[in-house]
């Protein structure tokens, strides 16, 4: 019963282009996690509210659980695995989350990292309001957000000091 039509989909993730075969309804989150094995992107609610699944598409934060894989063919997708090379130097947001104890269970963390990354790569001197505005779409149940705010602030500081 109901054999589903599959599509060849070219996904450009973390600078690498890979081809997958998937039905049109395959969510980007499931394609990243399942077909590409990039399990760093997490799924917390499947209705676009928690922000755990946030990835960057052409530099902007996007809910991968509300995006079909087929819809982002050939776009530049960045996931948490692309922030630092394997075993290599951490991205400033990663460094800052570690330094400021900005994570506990770590499940929401990839979404926060990608959101914060988009913010500080555009604006390395955000105000408190800009930080709040940026991360106000991501849920965390462990940290109470205090150290996450501190981490975003500190990540921007690292970026600024790297430039000088």
């Amino acid at each position: 019963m109901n054999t589903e039509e599959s599509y060849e989909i070219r996904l450009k993730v973390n600078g690498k282009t890979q081809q997958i075969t998937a039905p049109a309804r395959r969510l980007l989150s499931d394609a990243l996690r399942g077909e590409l094995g990039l399990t760093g992107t997490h799924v917390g609610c499947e209705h676009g509210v928690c922000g755990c699944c946030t990835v960057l598409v052409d530099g902007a934060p996007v809910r991968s659980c509300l995006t079909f894989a087929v819809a982002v063919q050939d776009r530049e997708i960045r996931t948490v695995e692309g922030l630092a090379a394997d075993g290599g130097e951490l991205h400033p947001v990663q460094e800052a989350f570690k330094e400021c104890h900005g994570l506990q269970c770590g499940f929401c963390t990839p979404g926060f990292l990608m959101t914060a990354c988009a913010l500080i790569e555009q604006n390395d001197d955000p105000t408190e309001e800009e930080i709040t505005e940026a991360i106000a779409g991501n849920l965390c149940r462990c940290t109470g957000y205090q150290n996450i705010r501190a981490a975003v602030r500190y990540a921007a500081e690292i970026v600024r000091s790297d430039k000088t």
Partner: protein
Amino acid sequence: MTTQSFGKAIRRTEDDRLIRGHGSFTDDAGSAGLSLTMIRSPYANARILSIDVSEAWDVEGVQAVLTYNDLPGRLVEPLPLLIPHPSLVAPRTQYILAKEHVRYVGEAVVAIFATDRYVGEDAAERVIVEYEPREAVVGIDAALGPNLVHDDVPGNVAADHVEHVGNVDQALVGAPHVLELDLDMERSMGSSLEGRASHATWDRHSRKLRIQNATQTPTSVRFAVANILEIPDEQVEVFAIDVGGGFGTKVIHPWPEDILTAWGAIEYERPVKFTEDRVEHFISSSHERAQRHQIKVGFDDEGRILGLDVDFVHDNGAYTPYGMIAPLITATQLPGPYKLPNYRVRFRSVYTNTVQVTPYRGAARPHAVFSMERTIDRIAAFLDIDRAELRRRNFIQPDEFPYDLGMIFQDGRPAIYDSGNYPELLEKVLAMIDWDGFPERRSQTPSGRRRGIGVACYVEGTGLGPYEGGHVRVETGGKVQVSTGLASSGQGHHTVFAQIVADELGVPFEDVEVVTGDTRRFQYAVGTFASRAAVMSGNAVAEAARLVKEKAIQIAAEALEANPDDLEIVDAQVQVKGTPARGIPLAQVAVLANPLRYSFSEAARAATQFAGAGDLDEPPIKPGEDPGLEAAGWYSPVRSTFASGAHAVEVEVDTATSEVEILRYCVVHDCGRLINPLIVEGQIHGGVAQGIAGALYEKMAYDEDGNLQNASFMDFLMPYCTEIPEVEIDHLETPSPLNPLGIKGAGEAGVIPVSAVIAAAVEDAEGFQINHMPLFPSELHEMRLMNAEVSE
């Protein structure tokens, strides 16, 4: 000396893999195999008339579609009652798949095994279940009414329990003043961002069932699965590598899906995974917090409490898998830091057609503290005495420890406070928030706003038994491997246990690697809950490290021809005290600890049989010794240790919108000696945030038919960063005399007094009584209208 780690704000060892996206959560495991999809009841109370699964079998990719009648062996039995209690006269637990009856919206009815979740849900749409709905029992009023959740449980009463200290009736008759209060709290839930999950694989060659499970209690999941599947424990391995938050919900086990994935893996010889989605987490895991309390308190002219009589009703939902733990905690933790010479508490735990109620972070203490602190504030208002002063007059004093409450705690042992300093906690938090300066600040409140201040104190029983264990092994490469059986879900166990072992053993922190929650590494454990992990496993790994140190010194003494009493371990070297030149690396001691026939490295040659070491008249392993530089240590406390704290909050309430804004939130916390202040403060931040969520934003909105109307993050208002203020923290360190490290639990504390303290501050701002939490702007608005009418 080796640099001390205990007490330092060391950055977490867990973080590197988590921030690189290399964590290993249960849903990350295995891409091939079967996915388990559940069909759940849309009715809160109904008889199942028929189930037609025939069309679902036809969907391509479906392996099997099961109902109750298809279940084999012990899978037909109700799930285990995890914690029996004498008061629980009518325990009920659910079946793996509903048998004839469903008792809450969300109860599992049909299980579908399919190639992926997409296919499973396609198949689910083709299953037809016919129900005969009955009147649903929703809420405490309905539970006390005529309709039944279980036909054989009269009055819906699962348990009716009384505890009594002193003589309350006499105390109330003799008291100069008596007040009565009615207080109630709504439901919320843990809402970890990772839902429940299990991934089971069956290796038919080695005959091992390997289960990665998002659980707080892997060892018990293992025993439960082996028991129900009727296979030897030895064939079952359970591990929780990374768990995306637990908050109590993931203590419950086995879930129906835990058993079905395990059984399916063997039956179909394919890996089977279940990953709960968000709606399922709302309607088929666990809730907590709905309780209604009637309180009668007698006191003298100075505000000293003479007698307290509490009668409360606990809504336990449709089933009682975790026994009466939640209401028992309310009963015994209600006295808090105050002397109650005459105290009686009665509770009835009642069934409703809603999701089961089991402990959620704080575990019925928020209700206890809400009840006690509201009572204290009400006495203060009645006598016109400062609320802080009234607390001072009723505190247990620092020289009165150990202080016996005269009750039995949730561990089945006497509730005896081991240590604390409640007056100092209060003075510190009052100074922090500048309690005395509040009238001045209030006078400067902007127009359109009302300002209020509140304070609340609590005592939390933590670190309860029966036991935990730890294993420490020094590898010949120099790494120190540590394992303990309980699981981690964000508490930083890998870091703090490494700190403890590094100090006890005398090795650098960086050399210690910790594994938690893996039955392949450590088979005996209880679990992570009740703020117990640091106390229990912390002391266990410390003991294991001490035993390893003793052994290392014995072996090194022979090798160095020195007196063991003259040796110490510094920076991973066993050496003559103060003489680093006469020493032997711990790694080499590990080689010598294992007499070898076969060498595997240059260093290992020293341990081989022709190396010439040792007394040839003694066996290589002497009686009573074991090979390897390793040891297991255990910690089993005689009873719980009691942490404590005081919170103060200043709020502003908008006169137009009735919105509550938190201006300052101050915490003084006493969990004994701090292992890692960074981690403790993180735990407090998160706890307070969950407390604020429960006080101002969250509730489970059931309609009268038992439908959960807000079963999504769109409607269940879990706070974002925009709702949570900065929390200011100070510590008091009153060591526990019960354990060698002097520590107490810290995981749940933050959440416990939040509803109480916010209610106090809003009451102070508004000038009318707050007896109900959570407090939404719409409700506060209604209360204003009502109170305005009353005063007119």
